[in-house]
């Protein structure tokens, strides 16, 4: 049982979700309510990780993180070390490949709020921030929660991109999914089985909890 890998995965999942929450609310809301030129392109880019093979996606991320790329150089200049094969690099990759899982459910959740409810919020004198906090977020909450749990579970399970971008550096980029692969390669079936069971349990609990909470919230909203 590789606890270091397990906690690394958890840390990665929590940070990914924490960073994607504001991004998803902002972008999901924007896509739900605004019409602008190139909206289809933005939606396409957001959905891209769903259809691109993880290795292809990982390859491009690796190239763009490299010390010769503008992004990689910028990172190097600001933080003094490279982005590829670090936990930060893994986190950035994780945020990007989770974009569709965060944004699409949130977009749907905001779209489901009737126009007149949002307009009524304005006519009640609620500022855009107050309307977001007191009307939109409470109503979109089940969708937002679903999005966050999906992202978390997906982060724990992602393999291809993590391997491409992070390598398999223990304590830095070796996540539980990679540790399982590692153990299988080493014929350590017992450890692989334990870790697989743990991942299965965490994922199942997370997904079930989403269904449970979204139904309860749904009932509360009537």
């Amino acid at each position, binding site marked *: 049982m590789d606890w270091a890998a397990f906690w690394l995965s958890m840390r990665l999942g929590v940070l990914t979700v924490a960073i994607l929450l504001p991004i998803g609310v902002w972008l999901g809301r924007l896509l739900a309510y605004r019409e602008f030129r190139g909206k289809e392109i933005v939606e396409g880019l957001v959905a891209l990780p769903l259809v691109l093979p993880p290795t292809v996606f990982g390859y491009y991320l690796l190239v763009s993180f490299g010390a010769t790329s503008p992004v990689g150089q910028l990172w190097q200049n600001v933080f003094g070390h490279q982005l590829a094969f670090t936990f930060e690099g893994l986190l950035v990759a994780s945020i990007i490949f989770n974009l569709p899982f965060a944004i699409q459910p949130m977009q749907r959740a905001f779209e489901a709020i*009737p126009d*007149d*409810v949002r*307009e*009524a*919020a*304005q*006519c*009640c*004198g*609620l*500022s*855009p921030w*107050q*309307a977001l906090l*007191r*009307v939109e977020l*409470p*109503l979109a909450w089940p969708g937002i929660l679903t999005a966050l749990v999906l992202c978390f579970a997906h982060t724990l399970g992602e393999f291809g991109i993590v391997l491409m971008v992070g390598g398999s550096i223990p304590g830095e980029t070796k996540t539980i999914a990679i540790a399982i692969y590692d153990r299988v390669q080493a014929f350590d079936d017992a450890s692989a089985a334990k870790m697989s069971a743990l991942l299965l349990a965490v994922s199942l609990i997370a997904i079930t909890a989403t269904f449970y909470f979204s139904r309860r919230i749904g009932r*509360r*909203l*009537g």
Partner: protein
Amino acid sequence: MEGLKAILRQDGPIPLDTILECAPGELLALVGPSGSGKSTILRSIAGLYSPQEAEVTVNGKVWTSTAAGITVPAWRRPVGMVFQSYGLFPHLTAAGNVEAAMSHLEPTKRGRRAVELLALVNLKGLEHRKPAELSGGQQQRVAVARALARDPKVLLLDEPFSAVDKVTRGRLYRELACMRRQLDMPIVMVTHDLDEAIMLADRMCLVQRGKILQAGRPDEIMRRPASVEAARLVGQRNIFPGRIEAHAGDPARTIIDWRGRRLETPHLPQWPIGTDVSWLIPPGKAVLHRRGRASRGDAENPVTGTIENQIALGDIVIATVRLDGEETRLLTVHLPRHAAERNRLASGEHIGLSLIAEAIHVMPAPLLTDRRQ
């Protein structure tokens, strides 16, 4: 200037060319067919829609002025708005919905005020219900209470009665009529229902394609539409062409030539002899001649024709009459059911009618471009 004044203009996508005013305490109804732009007018006042050109002032304060580059955002305008499907916040109780519109009050005062307002709309005891636990009529009352919660300078009602059944609607009419006495702000109500406007409004604007065709007292507009277009909008069907032939007699009468028929109307000296006009007769203002027993009244604007079809609706019979010598024009008349039965009226029967002179209303002839209608 006290009250609301709005000037709205744009070519598209929703054409608007509107000037309207509403005094404090006045209830102004915007009436028109769906798609006429009446809701857009309301939304422009609320700041939910921005026409190309707009000037909206309330009690002298500028809410919108495209000329001066001023647009106060909707949430900073003290308006109360009741939406067609209410737009209640489903996650909040009735009281919560009302309190949500009280950001201008101190938090400690909101609860009591919400209870007061809900009592005003007869929802005492239902403060803690969620919208989903309320009937349609109760939801509408919450929406009204919430609109008033902001202490609005203008109250806007967008088809507020269209989503409830008829019995509830009747009760809500009475409640609004009663509550209005306590309200001193301009009230603008959008409706497609003329009867609603007649019952509730002090003044009414007929709206078509974003333009106000006529403004005035509802009963006045119903009786005396200013144009053929307005007449059609208020549901008048018996609209015919004619020409002013003479002003004669003592007391003076005006004679209209209607394709060879002579019609007498009250004296209308404002129409010069020879003017082409349109005129209308309300369907209830044609009197059936009794068969085989002529009376003196029969001499008043007599016409004859054949009943094309007739249908009984409660106490009246609606008959469509093809007038003798007319190919296409039909006259619709509402006859008392007992009169229709006594005279054994049926499709194909030949009848005589008198058009009551006092009820004939003369309007300008439509412009050539409008004739296709």
